[in-house]
């Protein structure tokens, strides 16, 4: 077997050195009451060629991109990924490396993650970013737990405009600790209705997503102003950070913590994982942050280098008093995101954001003229909600069969938005795809 180098001579020699008769004898300390009775019930091993054929067959049933095109975002975005990302993140010095606890042997990863942290702070307009969390959902949960630690208040508010799955994960994390979660509705314009908050609510934080799940760009500046008067933190989450190539980022609007999903930055959709939890905050909260942090330093000869730092916040030192239990995070995804952002550059980032916006606006207006009303008048980025003409649900199903994912029906999470669809347009859609979709949707 090609992954197991031992020959029977090697094994014999090693057993003699150890002083046991057989491989089985190595397990003398495993008592009978722990042992398996029968061999593991697994399929027979496959050779490399059979495995490849099997996996190709599975992948064809997989989901790929439906031939007519997928126009769904909702937390997982189809973007072009330059070949340099795979070529460079696929270098085995990066992907077979361990966590950089021994910095002299891992300066490649450490500098790349330091660069990632820097790029994230610039994109979000904040001071300090961590080396990644698992995904946007757990990042939001961690952000709220951090706000609770910082303010010492046990209540948080969560906008209904936050991705429904993110809200579920927040409830899972906050459940056993007894912290209270207040849900904030969204108004007619599709943005969070803060009027539900009265003064003296004693909230640790309010979490608002922007652009939100309904595609709408929220006024974080106004929210920040109100919350800071009460001593609450503003947690601004996101699922599509490319938006900040065009729209003002959360840090510049007064958010205290910005967290969300970074999958759009050079990471394949891959049926929902691995993803990239992005997390950033202000300098004054740095020591309260969850997750690993890479810091700049020098070596004994005064040369610039990088190390993991502020580790006393983490589980391996602080144990039950740690800021989070996270250990392995999503380092390779952060690397892929950095490579992607390096390829795009500032010019490309701004250009790509604008292109997404323009194409989404084009589809929105063409469908608007064909019986699909804009649900909300608030500006959007590359996702928007349309109210379909009656009976469209049958067409939607037919279109799915014909290979078009014509938006995500929202009734399941927002019963008041029955017959409303969340559509997403990225740079992957040419004008002819958009025109074709309009034809299909209106026929």
């Amino acid at each position, binding site marked *: 077997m090609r992954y197991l*180098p*031992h020959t029977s001579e090697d094994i014999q020699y*090693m057993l003699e*050195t150890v002083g046991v008769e057989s491989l089985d004898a190595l397990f003398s*300390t*495993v008592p009978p*009451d*722990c*042992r*398996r*009775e029968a061999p593991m019930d697994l399929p027979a091993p496959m050779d490399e060629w059979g*495995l490849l054929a099997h996996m190709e067959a599975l992948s064809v049933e*997989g989901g*790929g991109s439906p031939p007519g095109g997928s126009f769904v975002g909702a937390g997982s975005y*189809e973007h072009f990924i*330059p070949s340099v990302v*795979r*070529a*460079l993140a696929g270098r*085995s010095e*990066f*992907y*077979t*490396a*361990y*966590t*950089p606890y021994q910095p*002299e042997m*891992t*300066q*490649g990863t450490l500098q790349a993650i*330091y660069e990632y942290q820097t790029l994230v702070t*610039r994109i979000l307009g904040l*001071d300090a970013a961590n080396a990644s969390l*698992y995904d946007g959902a757990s990042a939001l949960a961690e952000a709220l737990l951090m706000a609770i630690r910082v303010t010492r208040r046990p209540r948080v508010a969560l906008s209904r405009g936050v991705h429904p*799955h*993110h809200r579920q994960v927040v409830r899972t994390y906050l459940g056993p*600790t007894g912290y209270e979660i207040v849900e904030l509705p969204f108004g007619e314009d599709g943005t969070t209705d803060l009027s539900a908050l009265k003064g003296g609510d004693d909230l640790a934080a309010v979490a608002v997503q922007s652009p939100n799940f309904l595609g709408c760009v929220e006024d974080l500046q106004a929210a920040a102003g109100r919350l800071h008067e009460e001593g609450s933190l503003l947690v601004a989450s996101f699922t599509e950070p490319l938006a*900040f190539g065009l729209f003002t980022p959360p840090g510049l609007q007064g958010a205290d913590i910005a967290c969300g999903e970074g999958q759009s930055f050079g990471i394949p959709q891959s*049926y929902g*994982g*691995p993803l990239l939890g992005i997390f950033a905050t202000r300098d004054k909260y*740095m020591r309260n942050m969850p997750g690993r*942090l890479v810091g*700049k330093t*020098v*070596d*004994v000869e005064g040369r610039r280098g990088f190390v993991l730092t*502020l*580790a*006393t916040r983490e*589980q*391996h030192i602080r144990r039950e008093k740690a800021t989070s239990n*996270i250990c392995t995070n999503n380092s*390779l995804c952060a690397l892929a995101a950095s490579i992607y952002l*390096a*390829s795009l*550059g500032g*010019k490309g980032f701004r250009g790509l954001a604008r292109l997404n916006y323009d194409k989404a606006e*084009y589809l929105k207006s063409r469908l608007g003229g064909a019986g699909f009303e804009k649900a909300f008048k608030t500006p959007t980025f590359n996702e928007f909600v349309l109210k379909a003409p009656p009976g469209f649900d049958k067409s939607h199903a037919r279109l799915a069969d014909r290979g078009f994912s014509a938006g995500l029906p929202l009734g399941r999470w927002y019963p008041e938005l029955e017959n409303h669809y969340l559509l997403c347009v990225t740079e992957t859609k040419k004008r002819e795809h958009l025109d074709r979709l309009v034809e299909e949707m209106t026929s």
Partner: protein
Amino acid sequence: MKENQGTTGLVLNEPLLWEKGGRGREGFSMPEQDVDRAALPEGLTHEGPDLPDLSELDVVRHYTRLSQWNFGVDTGMYPLGSCTMKYNPKINEDLAQLRGFAGAHPMSPPEQCQGALRLMAELERYLAAITGLDAVSLQPAAGAQGELTGMLMIHAYHQDRGSQRTKIIVPDTAHGTNPASAALCGLRPVPVAVGGEGILSTADVARVMDGDTAGIMVTNPNTLGLFEENIHEIARIVHDRGGLVYGDGANMNAVMGVVDAGKMGVDVLHLNLHKTFSTPHGGGGPGSGPVCVTRELEPFLPVPRIVESGGRLVLSEDHPKSVGRLHCFTGNFGVMLKAYAYIRTMGAEGLGLASRLAVLNANYVKERLKGTFDLPYDRPCMHECVFSDKRQKDYKITTLDMAKRLMDYGFHPPTVYFPLVVNGSIMVEPTETESIEEIDRFIEAMESIAEEAAENPDLLRTAPSRTRLRRLDETAAARRPCLRD
């Protein structure tokens, strides 16, 4: 002695991203502007972030040079205890790129993703078969999140029975994520020390187990590399008082095909796909930490679950006792896919042999080095063994010094200063994918270092000398943190 494998070579310096490039350079193939530019909304937009502009070759050289400063499993051996740094098969990397998987949207209607769902459903069955438990969730994104899931389930189980408990027993050899995860569920960790033999004693557990204790978290084999021989009785003691047994499966690589976790008395176990199941470590993730449970705990598993409905597989959230959702979608599919491919490649016999060879390798290292380094527990070990720096104290040489010197010999250091119960601990886990030549070279390097400790200790104190950078100032990094430029 054979030639030292560590040497120096030409490696290039490389600045930070924004220290290179030039405004206006392009590295991205921008698609055509084939629609009109739309009007921008007032007051909401801004000029965009200040990111460096680089050409494609600028980017390629940057990351290629950075990669050359890294050591990986593909470069050489990582004898890191409890990390299981085994070889990452290349075929698995290719499989993750298959378009049908890479481009799959997780919220696609089930008809469009039967392949992905089928892979996950089969992987759940395989992990159940390997562990001897009954039901699995692949959702947790890493081992720590798997532990959190396990704690949440134990919490939910007790709540369901109307018996809310506030404590959980955690051995002093536990990985830091154990008490951290317990604390996230409001469970106060109650420490229990390993006995003189390096394993838990039934008396010590019985002494602390009571009606207010939710259960116990056990790693088996433990972080001293020893099999917790009393586990069956310990599980009985915990169960008798209504508690549950959580198994930290990080060390599963020692016991595949040998042990049945269900029979041992474990109620919920997490696995690390990026350890036992060969998926790459990625410089710190992504990993995957599935949880496996008994039939009794199945109702509490996270949602969505993969179920059969109308002849096909679907995702179902209709499980009222579930602890809820942990991940935005269904977990790290791209990682699961590699573990699935690994299991399909190895089969039951291959996995069983992998464990046996992992244990052989570790025992071989233990026998060969116990004359040179202090071995706190001179007993048969599993897939890892623990030494200490006690014998080198006379030369004022520490584990840290020896670890840094090992780099000059072309090896990544073993796990150091963990577990905490051994002062100056050195935890060595070769894994089964290392050949006898590589292991012998490692042993010779360690023996050489022990000699250097006696004869030339300054060499160790100033090590490493062959790496691009030498010892880095972690104190300055923590005193005046600089996390970005």
